[in-house]
């Protein structure tokens, strides 16, 4: 979109006006003319934006060229004005240049001379235009940056999550109102201060420092839960890197998770309440069924006995579910593993295996226990440990066909005591493996349909292991068997 170049010729001599018009329009430039200073100035005022170059005769009747030059430049100092001077009147040319004319041309001139002078002025004009464009662009960019800055500031300040930004020297360089509120501090107490001066919870300072120490390239983020008074916070910290990958600071996002914790607590309480309320009547029903089945309340027909037996089994299943739910809510509330003591795990397992031997013999399952002569003690809750192995071993017996084998081994691995429960049972499908520790998840196959269970056993086991800072893993091959491995830290 090349706008047509506009050249204004101001000269009292018609020959010059016509001559210039003819020469310049041949090159595709638009020419307008004025025959005196006043007319010229009027055009300049009207068409300032579209004028590129002005050719101005210095010697004119009425307002002379010098005066026109001054007035024109006072309208717009950027105007490119070429003065036309009489032959050999260099002095006036110099004077005009001093006053701000761009160039001069002496009369008489050849068409080529005119073209050269105008062309040079036009090149200058192009540069001027480009410079103007760049200036505008820069202005716009600066405005954009300012807008963006203000927008980001508003976003950060409006956020419900707290944000803390630290520089490499652990000095806080940004904190939003949510962060100051969560940390029960004020902006002036945090901003510009180093972490050690801010009186922050020690866990928070630690994870921020940890984030700043992150050395390896790539994205690292640290997440941590902490409490301030009644408030539960979750803090995520990630390092900020420069283009060389060096850590130049860190961003920490704080989330108030108190309401989640409260909901969780209410849920646990609700489950505990409901199960307690359910337990008493169901236990009474089971007791009544026991009395009936023992024929204490009179003889039963074969059919009645069969129905009552089935009813008792169902009630027992319900009671099992309630017990599992209670265990789970107790573990989740942190009430289950409060009594940690130094334990020989071998002793616990031996006791459970002795109890399970009857069940194993009934199914003709070979129950083997391999205990090392010496094993480190662990710090654990005895009841929960019994619970873990009762669950795992009874599962192994349940899911192993007659004549199979269940073996339990105990050994040490690094700073852990390792226990394994293996069976030669039906195994677990690959796609079921990741979910078997989920609450209420039960593997459904034709083989498991007959087996009674609540789907809570393994999630209870996992919760207990977690509460002891241990880990549990499972390996299984369909049709071959399953091995559960538990690692518990040495005491």
């Amino acid at each position, binding site marked *: 979109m090349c706008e047509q170049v506009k050249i204004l010729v101001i000269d009292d001599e018609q020959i010059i006006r016509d001559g210039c018009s003819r020469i310049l329009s041949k090159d595709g430039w638009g020419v307008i003319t004025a025959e005196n200073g006043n007319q010229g100035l009027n055009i300049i005022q009207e068409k300032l934006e579209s004028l590129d170059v002005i050719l101005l005769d210095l010697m004119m009747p009425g307002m002379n060229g010098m005066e026109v030059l001054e007035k024109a430049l006072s309208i717009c100092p950027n105007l490119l004005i070429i003065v036309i001077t009489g032959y050999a009147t260099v002095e006036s040319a110099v004077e005009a240049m001093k006053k701000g004319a761009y160039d001069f041309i002496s009369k008489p001139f050849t068409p080529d001379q005119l073209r050269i002078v105008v062309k040079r002025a036009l090149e200058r004009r192009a540069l001027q235009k480009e410079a103007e464009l760049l200036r505008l662009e820069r202005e716009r960019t600066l405005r954009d940056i300012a807008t963006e800055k203000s927008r980001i500031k508003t976003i950060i300040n409006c956020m419900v999550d707290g944000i803390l930004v630290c520089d490499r020297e652990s000095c806080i360089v940004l904190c939003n109102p949510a962060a100051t509120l969560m940390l029960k501090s004020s902006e002036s107490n945090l901003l510009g201060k180093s972490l050690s001066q801010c009186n922050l919870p020690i866990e928070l300072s630690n994870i921020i420092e940890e984030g700043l120490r992150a050395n390896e390239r790539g994205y690292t983020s640290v997440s941590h839960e902490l409490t301030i008074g009644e408030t539960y916070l979750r803090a995520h910290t990630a390092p900020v890197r420069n283009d060389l990958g060096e850590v130049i600071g860190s961003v920490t996002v704080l989330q108030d998770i108190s309401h989640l914790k409260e909901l969780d607590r209410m849920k646990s309480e609700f489950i505990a309440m409901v199960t307690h309320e359910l337990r008493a009547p169901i236990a009474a029903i089971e007791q009544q069924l*026991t009395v009936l089945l*023992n024929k*204490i309340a009179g003889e039963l027909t074969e059919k009645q006995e069969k129905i009552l037996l089935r009813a008792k089994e169902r009630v027992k299943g319900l009671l099992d579910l309630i017990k*599992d739910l*209670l*265990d789970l809510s107790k573990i989740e509330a942190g009430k289950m593993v409060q009594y940690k003591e130094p334990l020989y795990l071998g002793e616990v397992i031996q006791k459970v295996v002795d109890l399970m031997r009857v069940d194993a013999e009934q199914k003709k399952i070979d129950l083997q226990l391999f205990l090392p002569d010496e094993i480190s003690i662990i710090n654990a809750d005895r009841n929960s440990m019994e619970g873990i192995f009762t669950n795992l071993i009874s599962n192994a017996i349940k899911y192993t066909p007659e004549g199979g084998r269940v073996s339990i081994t105990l050994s040490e691995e690094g700073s852990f005591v390792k226990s394994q429960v293996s069976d030669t049972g039906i195994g677990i499908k690959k796609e079921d493996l990741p979910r078997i520790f989920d609450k209420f998840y039960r593997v459904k196959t034709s083989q498991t349909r007959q087996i009674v269970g609540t789907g809570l056993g393994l999630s*209870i086991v996992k919760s207990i292991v977690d509460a002891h800072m241990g880990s549990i893993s499972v390996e299984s091959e369909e049709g071959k068997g399953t091995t559960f491995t538990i690692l518990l830290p040495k005491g």
Partner: protein
Amino acid sequence: MAKKILIVDDDPDLVEAVSMILESKNYEVSAAYGGIEGLQKAKTENPDLIVLDVMMPDKDGYAVCKELKADPELSKIPVLLLTAVVSKIPTTRYTQQMGLETEADDYIDKPVEPEVLVKRIEALLTK
């Protein structure tokens, strides 16, 4: 002469079921439906043995047992604590500890199997 057993439990259906088990074994049974009533009947009915539920709203079994054992007149009556199994994870040790603290003579998990209950009671009565 038939031995007299006092059953203390706030659940009337459970009292009835346990009574029937004991009556079928020719024990004389009397019932109390709460901890406070249980203490009174322990004094007035002079039972040979008390089957005592743990979880009761007015006064729990541990408290009742403590008072029984503190009373020189009643301390010789054997007490069988009826504990509700509230957990699949074995709580035997916990129950034993609580049982020892309250000086109960034995404990049994609810719901009870008739033969087990009768065996435990016989053992306590011939002590």
